[in-house]
């Protein structure tokens, strides 16, 4: 009986104008996504030249970035590691400090969501899930067919379940058509052009993402059924649902950003640089002057030694301040993401990023693996050069007159090791296996599932209790 109701629903939906509309949008967007994915230029990872002063490390290419693109800030491909512990992601996308990676050069283009799978499903399919179900119950109630249907020997639960399966079925057709065309473009064109090649692991991840998408879409179907059972008229049902949709999908995830901004304050870059400058001025130049004035430094050699010692100490403080600042920014961003999780759309986005191994957390893992790598790198440099003198942009430059002799204080510079550099520890980014991705997204999937169960139970309760007229 459930099957029959589902079939009737599917037939009913297939003949309405909504179905071709969704099919067309889905095909256009998915094919566009495929074309964008295969025309994305491949950046090969070049091994950096072994160096004991500074090197650039690169992130591995993601084959699945077309599934969940993440924001551009999380797409930093390179970072500079300087001996001394300064690790700076190459973020500049301002027009004058020209970008390292071309894709960051979008500086003047409007901010917009990238057309990736996560976007298409998060926005378009959730909207259509509502459009397909807003009248599922109340329209039949208005027409009086609901009472007819329930006069048959069929339980109300199976009517509801049938309607759910019917809506799922109709939404899955455009989804699968779109995805198959998308993958076809990527496999065929990407294979010919040699830009994208998908391995078994990627196929498994894609399958997982499709399952998560079905869960997400069914959440909105159930929400639609719930409101449709509550509402008296189908037009008010649609209005209520659209308000819910705008709040859940558009407003709440974005509101999280400013809420987190209010709850956790971080220093601005200007304040940070001012604090650094103060430390530099007080602890560096004036400290040296003080030591000279007090007569502790009398010769050039002593000055050199004092300058070196001071320099190493200050740079360490600077690096600590900077990484503390970055840590605060990351913590703020994490709390924004946590707040955003009141919205299923944000949860789905995070699941997509975890499965595609992209986005903010991937970026943070990349940076963390560089920090881990740095320790090995420093050991290597210490072993080769003997000592670690931090490289940085700050320099002492002062001259003083001690006992009629001019002395100069200069910053020590890290040394480039000239001899054999074999055994250089290259950076290799550890990647997440599918199990890792699954493990982190498990609780998110569970939340999505709980939302669905909640909506289903509520819809069931309302549908059973409420009059059929």
């Amino acid at each position: 009986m459930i099957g029959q109701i589902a079939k009737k629903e599917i037939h009913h939906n297939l003949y309405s104008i909504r179905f071709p509309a969704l099919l067309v949008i889905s095909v256009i967007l998915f094919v566009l996504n495929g074309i964008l994915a295969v025309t994305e230029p491949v950046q090969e990872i070049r091994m950096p030249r072994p160096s004991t002063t500074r090197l650039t490390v690169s992130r591995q290419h993601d084959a699945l970035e077309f599934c969940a693109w993440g924001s551009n800030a999380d797409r930093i491909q390179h970072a500079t590691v300087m001996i001394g512990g300064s690790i700076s992601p190459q973020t500049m996308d301002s027009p004058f400090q020209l970008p390292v990676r071309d894709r960051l050069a979008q500086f003047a283009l409007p901010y917009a969501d990238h057309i990736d799978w996560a976007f298409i499903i998060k926005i378009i399919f959730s909207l259509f899930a509502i459009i397909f179900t807003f009248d599922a119950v109340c329209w039949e109630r208005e027409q009086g067919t609901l009472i007819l249907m329930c006069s048959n020997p069929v339980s109300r639960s199976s009517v509801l379940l049938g309607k759910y399966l019917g809506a799922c079925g109709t939404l899955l057709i455009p989804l699968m058509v779109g995805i198959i065309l998308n993958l076809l473009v990527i496999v065929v064109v990407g294979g010919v052009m040699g830009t994208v090649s998908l391995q078994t692991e990627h196929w498994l991840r894609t399958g997982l993402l499709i399952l998560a998408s079905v869960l997400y879409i069914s959440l909105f179907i159930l929400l639609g059924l719930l409101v449709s059972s509550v509402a008296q008229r189908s037009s008010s049902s649609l209005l209520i649902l659209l308000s819910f949709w705008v709040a859940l999908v558009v407003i709440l995830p974005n509101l999280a950003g400013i809420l987190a901004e209010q709850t956790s304050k971080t220093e601005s870059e200007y304040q940070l640089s001012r604090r650094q400058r103060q430390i530099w001025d007080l602890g560096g130049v004036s400290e040296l002057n003080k030591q000279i004035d007090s007569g502790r430094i009398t010769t050039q050699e002593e000055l050199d030694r004092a300058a070196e010692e001071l320099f190493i100490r200050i740079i360490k403080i600077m690096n600590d301040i900077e990484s503390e600042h970055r840590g605060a920014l990351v913590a703020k961003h994490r709390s924004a993401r946590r707040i955003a999780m009141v919205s299923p759309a944000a949860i789905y986005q995070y699941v997509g990023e975890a499965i595609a191994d992209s986005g903010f957390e991937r970026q943070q893992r990349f940076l963390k693996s560089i920090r881990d790598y740095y320790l090995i790198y420093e050991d290597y440099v210490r072993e080769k050069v003997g000592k670690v003198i931090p490289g940085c942009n700050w320099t002492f430059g002062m001259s003083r007159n001690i006992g009629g002799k001019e002395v100069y204080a200069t910053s020590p510079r890290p040394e480039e090791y000239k001899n054999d550099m074999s055994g250089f520890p290259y950076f290799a980014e550890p990647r997440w296996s599918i199990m890792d991705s699954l493990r982190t997204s498990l609780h998110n999937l569970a939340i999505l599932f709980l939302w669905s169960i909640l909506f289903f139970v509520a819809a069931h309760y309302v549908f059973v209790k409420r009059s059929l007229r």
Partner: protein
Amino acid sequence: MIWIVAARETLDNLMSLKFLFGTVLCLVLVVISMMVSLRDYQNRMDEYESAISEFNEKPDVLEFKIYRKPEVLSIFACGFEKRFGNVATVYPTIPVQAGGFMGASESAQFSAEFASIDFLFVVRVVLSLLAIFLSYNAISGEYERGTLKLALSRPVPRASIILGKLVAGIICLLIPVIMSFIIGILIIQFIGGIAFTSEDWLGISSIAGVTILCVMSFYMIGLVVSSKTRQAAISLLILLLIWITGVFLIPGITTAVVGRYRLMASNPGRDITAINGDFYERMQKDPGPDLHEDQEAYAKYRVKWDELEDGRNRSIWNLRRQYLNRLYSQADLARWICRLSPSESCAYAAEAMARTDIGAYRSFMRYVRSYHEPHREFVKTLWKDREKFNEDRRKYSKTPDVPPIAFSASFRSAAPDICLLAVLNVLFFMLSVLFFIRYDVH
């Protein structure tokens, strides 16, 4: 007769749940966004002032900084205000590099994941949707209920019915828009304690005008679709598709596609590095006479050197300019395509009027660059007196106040978008009249 139709329609809308809900949502979001943007603006202003006083206390001609004042109206339309730099450094020896940040560039990078909920966001998402909700059943809904037949059975010209609906729409949409602006202005004046100048008032009222034009154009689209369909549900469905295309798909697809076209402009970074390498190599080969031994020979050498440096600066700047122009023209292209959507046009016009658009940034950079040449000449004259240079470099410079963009100029750059919106409104209204006159009520 128009007024009777308008009054009835207005009352109908005002009493409806959708109007109440939309207005409340809009006002709540406006309050939140205003409070947040206000605080953000005050932080930026504090930093601007402390940065300027700090620079003027200890100025340096070798690292001469010019600061861009935060715009008050960025509270309404943030635009590119926080995305582009607001400090430019004029080094006498290299072309203007500008693009530094006061305020929070890195945190802006971080929060790129979350759209900034400024006033424009509320207009784009909430008010446009409210406009559609108010108009989707204007004609088709009455047809379904059968009231359209009744209304037309009386001696009323059809044009006046649709005109009445238009007036009703204007009244109903003006209420949330005007209330939002009043709340916004009250928050800025009383909580922020900021007094507006007359230019600011002009800017705010034009932003309000643009907002109304934008919201009205969505209302008109609703009228057009509604007078072409027979079922309210279908007209709402079509309108939702139009809305989602205008608000999400057009900007998204345009950015993605035009972003690809960008690849044709190649980054001149490598060429610039080559030019610099060449220059420093020549410098190393010919270190010149010692300053302390032969002052005259050194001065001659220095003149030659300055010329070389000028040449290098020119060629680097040419490369950069070409690349930047490509990027800007690309952004222009993207904006022109995005103008298919009224909400984007509205955003561009409001940003232009708030002086937070790309044009405002470019005029700031032009000002900074116009400073470069005279500044370099000035430093050369200081340079002549070697012994005193270290004192002089901290004596002679105070950072200039960047002249603000006049309202007339910002209005001029917003004019195409305003015209576009106005034309769209008229066009849609004429279409809806045309469709309604041919509407079959049976």
